[in-house]
């Protein structure tokens, strides 16, 4: 899975924002605010990865047990899919 084409992750005034660019800005009229963990997940997803790769990236970056990591990733992915910014 991968973030859809045409979104730019930027740090603006210490906030993580994802901004649509080009055609994506026509379909998605807004911005996405992410916390630091969300920005980490986004940056991994923007290169394309499997679910298991995402989980192992989180486990190597954060001191967290696997069940909690998976739960948080699932919540993030559901929100991102509902916003239609991720493709499989």
């Amino acid at each position, binding site marked *: 899975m991968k973030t859809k084409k045409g979104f*730019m992750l*930027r*740090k*603006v*005034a*210490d*906030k993580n*924002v994802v*901004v649509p*660019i*080009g055609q994506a*800005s026509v379909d998605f*009229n*807004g*911005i996405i*605010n992410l916390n630091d963990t969300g920005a980490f997940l986004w940056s991994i997803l923007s290169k394309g990865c499997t679910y298991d790769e995402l989980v192992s990236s989180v486990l190597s970056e954060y001191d967290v047990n696997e069940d909690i990591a998976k739960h948080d990733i699932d919540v993030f992915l559901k929100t991102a899919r509902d916003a239609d910014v991720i493709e499989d």
Partner: protein
Amino acid sequence: MKYKIADIIVDFDVLHPHLGNQIKDYVYDGNEKTNLHVRFTDQFYEDLRKYYPNLSDDTLEYMYLGGEFYSTLVYFNGMMLHSSCVVYNNRAYLFSAPSGTGKSTHTQLWLKRFPGSYILNDDKPAIRLSKNGIFVYGTPFSGKTNLQQNKRVPIGGICVLERAETNSITRVSTEDAIFALLNQTIRPYKEDELDKIMNTIDILVREVPVYRLKCNMETEAAEVAYNGMKGNTDNEN
């Protein structure tokens, strides 16, 4: 002919009265090098007429030269904010909202309430960052009205305007400020232009307070806005 708009030297062929009238005060006869040179070909106009059969050449010229100017502005640490900008006590206050909300109606209340205030640009003022501070410029692109002046004024504050029964003003969160600015400027299609705008917004939301004004159409709305924003004009220039 050369014009100087927001300290950017442009070379335009202005053939029609709408922009022709509004750009008169911006004629430039100095020797600084031209930053933007635009000549629209007959073919360009012909294609536009097919695409916008209801728009006159007058309107097309105004729209497209404006578009060229504001795209260039992005490369000069600047951005357009779709807003009505009023100046009082040498500070520029920008009131931004989607069309039809009542930006111009609100700034007209300032003119009534605060003698000496004036409209710097009623629709598309230019904001530029510089070593000496953050400034707002009048531009000839002021919408249907000719409410604009060729001046540069230190920024006082930015305000998102909403209609309400009673008047109140609050600071918005950084996230809301970023969205407000990005939502009321020309969203560029090109990635490097967007990147430049994000750099500008990054500085703006750090340096300039952004508010949400809920307001009615009484002159009290101007008082509430001014009293809420004046305390934060500490970027002396």
